[in-house]
């Protein structure tokens, strides 16, 4: 058995032990949670702050198989599980949050194209770069009152919040990537009789695409953050709206599954983007 010496850089822990160690913190967290839950339930068997397994199960059941409180959908007696799921609270919230998220993701595409131009075409750089640098420093959330006035308090103000929050950073990031494409590549393309658009869209954009996707992966969390901020302030549905509502009457049995569900969704998007990146760009050497 390998000697356990945490401060040895050259240590070679054996595989099984390393695996076990990586689970340790999870186990401790769950253990602490359970301990707290049990002790609180001993004092008050109806405690809602740290729900026990039965309460959590009920909360999960309520979120995935029962409609939201504000909905007046009454399921037929013989409704299937699928039918119930389709009208459930979590489905509804995920759909509306996801819609906002996807629309803002699509709106980032023109931002990336703009960034490509800023990095590559000197006139675009001259026109846009300084303004984007300035705009990047504005805290998007501080614009929220203006956004509410301009876009109204429903969908578009939240989407605008996400785009305004993430796009400038993304533009600056992609501009840097475009600028770091070796000059030789661009010169070479021109000697191969490429025109400006060939160079932009068939040489440079192809080369930065894997980095752009990686940058997007890093920006998923800020996007989600802006979405949640928007939804918590003004919304009538959505994942963050539900969490905000549940907080009012300490509905931890619903909040905790929601938190884990959002984390899982983000992980899933990140993972699929990474897989897509590997599949599409086998030549990419990070």
């Amino acid at each position: 058995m390998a000697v356990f010496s945490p401060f040895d850089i050259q240590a070679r822990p054996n595989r099984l032990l390393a695996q076990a160690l990586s689970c340790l913190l999870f186990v401790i967290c769950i253990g602490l949670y359970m301990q707290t839950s049990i002790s609180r339930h001993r004092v008050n068997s109806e405690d809602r702050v740290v729900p026990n397994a039965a309460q959590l199960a009920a909360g999960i059941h309520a979120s995935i198989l029962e409609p939201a409180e504000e909905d007046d959908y009454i399921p037929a007696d013989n409704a299937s599980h699928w039918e119930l799921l389709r009208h459930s609270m979590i489905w509804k919230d995920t759909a509306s949050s996801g819609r906002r998220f996807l629309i803002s993701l699509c709106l980032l595409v023109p931002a990336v194209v703009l960034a490509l131009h800023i990095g590559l075409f000197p006139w675009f750089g001259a026109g846009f770069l300084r303004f984007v640098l300035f705009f990047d420093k504005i805290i998007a959330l501080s614009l929220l009152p203006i956004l509410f006035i301009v876009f109204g308090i429903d969908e578009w103000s939240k989407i605008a919040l996400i785009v305004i929050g993430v796009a400038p950073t993304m533009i600056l990031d992609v501009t840097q990537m475009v600028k770091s494409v070796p000059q030789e590549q661009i010169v070479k393309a021109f000697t191969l009789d490429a025109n400006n658009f060939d160079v932009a869209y068939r040489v440079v954009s192809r080369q930065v695409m894997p980095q752009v996707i990686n940058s997007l992966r890093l920006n998923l969390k800020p996007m989600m953050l802006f979405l949640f901020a928007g939804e918590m302030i003004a919304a009538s549905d959505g994942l963050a709206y539900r969490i905000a509502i549940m907080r009012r009457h300490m509905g931890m049995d619903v909040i905790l599954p929601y938190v884990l569900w959002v984390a899982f969704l983000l992980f899933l998007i990140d993972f699929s983007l990474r897989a897509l990146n590997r599949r599409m760009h086998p030549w990419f050497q990070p």
Partner: protein
Amino acid sequence: MVSTLIAPHTETFDAPAVPASTAVQIENVSVSYPVGKKTRKTILENISLDIEEGEFVVLLGETGCGKSTLLRMILGQERPTNGRILVSGKPVERVDSRSGYVPQKYSLFPDRTVLENLVMGPETSAYHILGRLRPGFRAFRKQVREEAFRQLRHMGLQESDAAKYPHQLSGGMQQRVAIGQALMMKSRVLLMDEGFSALDPATRTSLQRLLRSVWSELKPTVVFVTHNTMEALYLGTRLIVLARPNFEDHCGSRVVLDMKLPASGMSLRSNGQEFLDLVDHVEQFSRGDRHPQPSLNGESR
């Protein structure tokens, strides 16, 4: 024998008509850039050269003497502060397909396979970005692919290499493909910037041999930048040495030696001691030892 080889290559730069056989004309080119408020640093000073069609010119010089700058100006990537440069009789304004280019690094598009790299030139020049949607494109592409496979074999690669990405090839292989890629365009001028400097000696020799054979077959005009004297003497038919007369800022590099080499090329093996003497002689110039016979100072004033 040495003295016959280094007979100064005389020329006048007020030649009125451009002869059709002049591939690259460099007319009184100077390059300088401002440092500080009043002083300017001069890189190149009054360079005038006529490069004939089909010549293999090697630009030799120490690091920082401006030989790469000169090449980039022929390419159109940089502009001279004074003077002008003509390629195939027309002034160079921007990078275009008049000259092929093989840089030292990043010579291939990393996101394209070897075959895609080779067909890139003819494809883009015939069908630009949206032209690829036109009906003739597929037939054209097939034809170019066949040519690319021919070029691939010619450069000494196997057909199984066609589907590989550049990062899967060794440095020497990459440069082989890069030369092939430039040749696919059939441009008459080939510019190479330290093309083989990053390679190990054995690979380097085999690529030098390849380049020689390509040159003697197609006779393109080659401008090859290097800091390796042996390589210069082996490859070129004309050797141009750039060096600065002293190290003050206002003095730029000039042509300190301009000589013809035998078209069959020179090597240590075939020319023996004579080759080594010549290497010494040339290196004396490029180091800037300023006391050889004045008759050898081709262009310097």
